[in-house]
């Protein structure tokens, strides 16, 4: 069902974990809806300097958020905000249609983090 890339990232995500002293933290979902995502950002010169995530989610959510982190690291906030989910799915070499819903959680949390950062600064 899952591509090799998804399995690889699920087994060894590179961006998972809490970030202390993050510049912004985005959150979506919750216990009740069965999936939850937190994205931590470090921002410098309007660019994403570092990024981490935590999730209560399935394999697709873990792998796609990890992919997203890799893709947005180093980008400007505007570029990151506008990134499409398709880029993540492409990076993962495909995603079962009924799991795409799980793969957008990371993007939503990232946008929430960027919104919060902009409000703050």
């Amino acid at each position, binding site marked *: 069902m899952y591509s090799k890339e998804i399995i690889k990232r699920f087994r060894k995500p590179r961006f998972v974990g809490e970030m202390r002293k993050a510049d912004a933290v985005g959150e979506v979902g919750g216990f009740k809806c069965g999936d939850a995502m937190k994205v931590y950002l470090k921002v410098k010169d309007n660019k994403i300097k570092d990024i981490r995530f935590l999730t209560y989610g*399935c*394999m697709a959510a873990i792998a796609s958020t990890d992919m997203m982190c890799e893709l947005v690291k180093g980008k400007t906030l505007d570029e990151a905000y506008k990134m499409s989910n398709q880029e993540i799915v492409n990076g993962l070499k495909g995603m079962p249609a009924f799991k795409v819903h799980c793969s957008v959680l990371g993007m939503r949390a990232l946008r929430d983090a960027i919104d919060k950062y902009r409000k703050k600064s």
Partner: protein
Amino acid sequence: MKVYLDNASTTKVDERVIKKMIPYFKDNYGNASSLHEKGLSAKKAIEEARNIIAISINADSDEIYFSSGGTESNNWALKGIAFSNRHKGNHIITTKVEHKCIMESCDWLNKQGFEITHLEVNNGGLVDLEELKKKIRKDTILVSVIHGNNEIGTINDIEKIGKICREKGVYFHSDACQSFLKEKINVKEMNIDLLTLNAHKIHGPKGVGALYVRSGVILNSWQQGGGQENNMRAGTENTPGIVGFGEAVRLGLNKEEIEKMEKLRDKLIEGILQNISEVKLNGSSGKKRLCNNINLSFRYIEGESISGMLNQHGICGSTGSACSEKSLEPSYVLKAIGLNHEMANGSLRLSLSKETNEKEINYVLEILPKVVKKLREYSPYGEVK
């Protein structure tokens, strides 16, 4: 190490079953309806299998009808009884924890104008007998209650349910796909009118099952054609499958094999409960639980991830989480026993077979705590502990 603990989904076919089936592909491949040698030997083998299965549940041979599996038998039982007995009423009683093929058949019947009552179950997954008595009405034609639950392993008291139904003059059907051979089933003593059985959960082949129909029960055929199965279920008989089914039942499960599964099941449950925090056993315990079923909910983490990571370590299990479902809804069975979304989404089912050994259980006990720990490190709720 490879550990297969998804035997409630399907089992490995026993070598002896395969051996018994092969001649019916290679030599005795005749159509059982044909009157030549090859047809007659196929017919004879089918009748032998029918007899073995009948004896195993104390039925008569002519009360056993072969089908393509549990799903077909359940569909036939429900739809067949409904349409053959519509003159008596249009109310059907079932439960909230049936297999999907019963739920979906009932939904379909509902659209055809039948009224369906879904009985609640308690936290352990058991049907309340007093509730059942209250819900049976004058226009009730059928009660269908699962024997051993496929997700949580709870065993309903079908003897008592059968007694209630017989006293009230209502047909009683039970889906015994999971419990067959593991629990004693005597259709006469238990007042069972219809019973669903299948082969692939008992080390037999896929694609073959049976429906027991007590003689005297009014049930029309659902599949028309060449008059096979005593005009009740048309279609050329799946001779190798039926032979394999018969052999799987003949081999059966002995007392030692059942006790071994119970012992290993309890060892695994206790080991998990002791070594992992914030985990809950779903279903009932002891004798009210199938000897091979374990169903647990792990807090703060998601079931598909748990089974996915176990799979990376060679362990096959399954989950009732929403993320494993195209519907994106967690298991309705887990919700019916009172689990909230969070716990229902964090569920893992491990189901043993007669071939499961202690080494495999020890391996799961070594790996599972690590998997849970790792996923909790990924989880924003891990810190809540």
